[in-house]
Structures are given as structure tokens and as C-alpha cells.
């Protein structure tokens, strides 16, 4: 079964979506969409380094993303710049650095489009093993820290005041996000990873009554987007990564339709990370 590139693509994509859904819920609850972008842009630097040092791409991307998450955490503590300015700075510096590195390595030919938009049809059985191994690890850790992370999301001060150490939990969460971005780079590409994290979660919002339910529905929505996107990519001969994102967006639009009242944005939503 794994011989067929399309089946491999489906299995890999569904694996990524199942992990990205729950994690994406936290990203939108915590208003960290831009953080996801930053990590995925930095992933390109990871790719460049992996080629330079001749190591596994996923590992190198993971290492760079984790480093970035730690740097961000440290910079945020030191109050030098506002959080979104820091993210913008790190995001584009890392992306530019990655592209410059790639340009210097004249001896390698890199499929830049493949990196930016993903090449799910080139997924190998090893990639699948990494996605499911890494994914299982991420979901397990997420379940373990769920209560603490959730409390820190609702109120970091409250969590800290009642002894839950939110900073520690937040760092673990950032590392999990870094891992997910590393394993999904090949599936969806650096530019569109954030979409797979946040669109299914946003689509799940209207259909869920509890946070756990929302995480579950987000995972299923993401998986459905992968299946829909891949089949339409096959049918209409469109690029696979963007097709998955378009499918996810279509599901989001559908989630808005059935009889539910128009979303009312409350005051709190004005303070978003994204400009």
C-alpha cells in the first residue's frame, strides 16, 4: 500500500493534520498565529543548514525551530521589543538568512518552490515514520500538559499564582509547535504550515462547546481538508499544499453557514498578535 505515492501522501497528510488540529487550537486561543509563521519561516534556515551539514532535514528544521522558540522566550523576558515586533524581526531574518545560505551553496540545487509550498507527493516511508512517531510524541506531551497549558492560556497570572508554573508549560508548548512544523514542512511547505494549524481550529470553533471537543473537531477537520485537498489536486492538477489549504478554508466557510448566528467579536479579540 505504501508503494503508491498518493496513498503515502494521504497517510502523511492525515497524520500531520491530526496533530496540527489540537495544537492549532492553542495557537488561536493564545493569539499566537504569528508565532507559527515565525517558526515556519525559520524552518527554511533549518533546511539550508541541513544541506550544508548534510544531516536529516526534519531534524535540522526541528533544531532551528526549537532554538528560535527558546531565543524568543528569552528576548520576550528581557522587555527589549514588543512581542509582535520580535516575531517579525526573527521571522524575516531567519527566512532571509536561509535564502542567502541556499544561494551560497552553488553545488546544491534546491527546489525552492517545494520548500515554500511543500511536496507531499514525494513523501517517503521514512517521512511517514517521522510524522507518526513525532506526532504521537507531541500528542502525548500535549495530553500530559493539557490542564496546565489550558489554565495558562485562560490566565497566565492565575496559573502562576496558584502554582502551575505557566512559563515552563509555555516553553514546552512552543517546543511542540516547533516539532510539528518540522514534521509538516514537507507536506505543506514553509509558507502554508500556519494555515494547517489555524484554519481547522478556526473551523472547529463554531461547532464545539468545550475546548477538548474543539481540539478533536479541529483534528478531524484538518484530516478532511487533507483528503479533500489531495483528491482535488489529483483531479484538477493543482499544487498539493495550496490545495489542502483551500480545502481547509472551504470547510471553514461551511462551518459558518448552517443556521448559526454571525460570529460576534468581543472586545478581547482586538488585542491579536497578527497585525
Amino acid at each position: 500500500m505504501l508503494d503508491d505515492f498518493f496513498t503515502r501522501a494521504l497517510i502523511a497528510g492525515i497524520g500531520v493534520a491530526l496533530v496540527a488540529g489540537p495544537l492549532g487550537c492553542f495557537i488561536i486561543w493564545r493569539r499566537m498565529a504569528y508565532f507559527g509563521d515565525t517558526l515556519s519561516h525559520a524552518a527554511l534556515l533549518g533546511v539550508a543548514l541541513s544541506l550544508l551539514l548534510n544531516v536529516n532535514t526534519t531534524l535540522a528544521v526541528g533544531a532551528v525551530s526549537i532554538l528560535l522558540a527558546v531565543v524568543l522566550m528569552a528576548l520576550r523576558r528581557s522587555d527589549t521589543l514588543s512581542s509582535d515586533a520580535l516575531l517579525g524581526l526573527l521571522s524575516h531574518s531567519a527566512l532571509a538568512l536561509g535564502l542567502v545560505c541556499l544561494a551560497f551553496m552553488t553545488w546544491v540545487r534546491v527546489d525552492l518552490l517545494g520548500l515554500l509550498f511543500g511536496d507531499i507527493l514525494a513523501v517517503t516511508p521514512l517521512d511517514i515514520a517521522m510524522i507518526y512517531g513525532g506526532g504521537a510524541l507531541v500528542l502525548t506531551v500535549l495530553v500530559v500538559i493539557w490542564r496546565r497549558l489550558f489554565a495558562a492560556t485562560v490566565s497566565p497570572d492565575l496559573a502562576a499564582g496558584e502554582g502551575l508554573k505557566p512559563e515552563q508549560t509555555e516553553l514546552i508548548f512552543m517546543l511542540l509547535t516547533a516539532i510539528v512544523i518540522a514534521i509538516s514542512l514537507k507536506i505543506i511547505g514553509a509558507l502554508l504550515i500556519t494555515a494547517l494549524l489555524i484554519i481547522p481550529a478556526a473551523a472547529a470553533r463554531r461547532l464545539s462547546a468545550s475546548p477538548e471537543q474543539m481540539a478533536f473537531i479541529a483534528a478531524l477537520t484538518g484530516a478532511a481538508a487533507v483528503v479533500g485537498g489531495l483528491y482535488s489536486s489529483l483531479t484538477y492538477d493543482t499544487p498539493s499544499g495550496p490545495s489542502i489549504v483551500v480545502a481547509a478554508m472551504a470547510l471553514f466557510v461551511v462551518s459558518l453557514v448552517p443556521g448559526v448566528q454571525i460570529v460576534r467579536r468581543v472586545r478581547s479579540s482586538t488585542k491579536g498578535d497578527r497585525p
Partner: protein
Amino acid sequence: MTNSDTRLVQLDRAGVRKGGEWLVRGVDLSVSPGEIVTLIGPNGSGKSTTAKMALGILSPSEGRADRKPGLKVGYVPQKLAIDWTLPLTVTRFMRLTNPLSDAECRAALARTGAERLIHSQMRTLSGGEMQRVMLARAIARNPGLLVLDEPVQGVDYAGEIAIYDLISEIRKTLGCGILMISHDLHVVMAAADQVICLNGHVCCRGTPSDVSRDDRYHALFGNRRNGAIAVYEHYHDHVHLPDGKVRHADGSVCSSCSGEHHHHSHGDAPAEKEDGIRNAG
């Protein structure tokens, strides 16, 4: 007043510095079981910062902040950062930091008068409802120390009195120490054992009656003694004046509240005596 081993939390010349500026410094403070300590002060005077040092959310840049080992804290922060995309019911919020049975949830919400909200979504609550739910969550933990950051913000006038009465009652039934922040000076006066008036440093401190007579307090807030009287007239048949005298609803003033006018047990009024010590009620 109390020896140091019974103290739940103690700040010792503590201060926090951020970006080269002192938010607050030189704060001495301790809360013992059954004691209500109230922090008052203008905006930006370091009230929340001081509370956060007591909670261990901020570590002091100078001085010390010590909490009793194993102390269980119930905290009502000034506001929550709940995103509109987060589906969160009141029941789920009640269980945010520790597991609770349905009965425990219901009982705690009933105490703060928020039982009917049990299945509501958090983001649909009004300011006052939010305060009641947050207070219910904090007391459901059965804490040794309750820290309340402006517990009556957004609560209407009558509800404000009800919440202060509730806080006094919680102190009695749970026996916990309470550290409270308030800018509602007039009501604070009646509910606290000790008032600490902050303005970047400890401006003055003492029993409610001490503070209300302190010139530095008046310099900071202006004369609010009349405000203090107005509130209690609204609910009780007599008020305890800061100087220890009692004024009845008909306007007569006498030295004690026992008399024919007295229809209301006043165990919670600390300003009853000149020295500010509560009577046992």
C-alpha cells in the same frame, strides 16, 4: 501581632523594578489566617505588583517574599485573557486549576450567588457575573490564602456590598487569610483588619480607623469619610464611624451599637472599636 510561623505570606522590604523604574519598593506586609489585609492606592501605585509578589508571580528585585510551604492559594486576578474563540463554560472554568465534583462547583457558585450561570459560556458573562464566578472558583479550592485583585470591579452598587459581606463570611467559614486590593475605599474601611495605603511605597498603614485619620491618606485621596458613611446607611440601620462612634439611621450618634435601633448583627465591622480590632460577633 502574630508570630512568624503562622503567617501565610510575608513581604520584607520587597520591591519590583522593571525597565529601570521601581514599580513599588519597601513593602512590608504579612497575612495571617483569618486576617483581611487590604491594599489601597491610586492607579499605578503598585497594588497589583505587590499582590503578585505575595503570590510569587513576580519575584522581588529587592527584599524578600516568603510564602508558607505548601500554602494553597486562591487567586482572583484583575481580568482574564479569554479569547473569543475559546469555548469555555463556567463549569469548566471552575475546574481550571484543580478537579472538582459537580456538587462542589454548584456549592461554590451558590455561595457567590452565581449558581444560575453554571452552564453559561464565560465570554457571555457581564463584569459582575465574571467577578462572582472568579470568586467562586477561588473559594472552591478551599484556599489557605485568598488573593483578590479588585473583586468588585464591574459589580453594581448593591452587589458590591453583597460581595464584601461574602468575603467577610468566607474569612470566617474558611478561616483563610485574605489579601485584597481595592480602590473602593469607603467599603474597604469596614471589611479590613489592616489597610496598607500604597503610592509606589507604603504611604501609611494601620487599622481602617488609623488610616482614615492619617493625613497622608487624605493627601492621597482627599476626604472620603462621608463616602464611608453613605454605603453602610444603604444596608444597615447604623454605621460605625471611623472614630468608633455609631451613627444610627435616624442620624443620632452614640458610642455603641447596642440599643433599640440595633437590628443587625455586626460581627464583620472592624471599625467598631477605636483600636480597630474586630469584635467576635
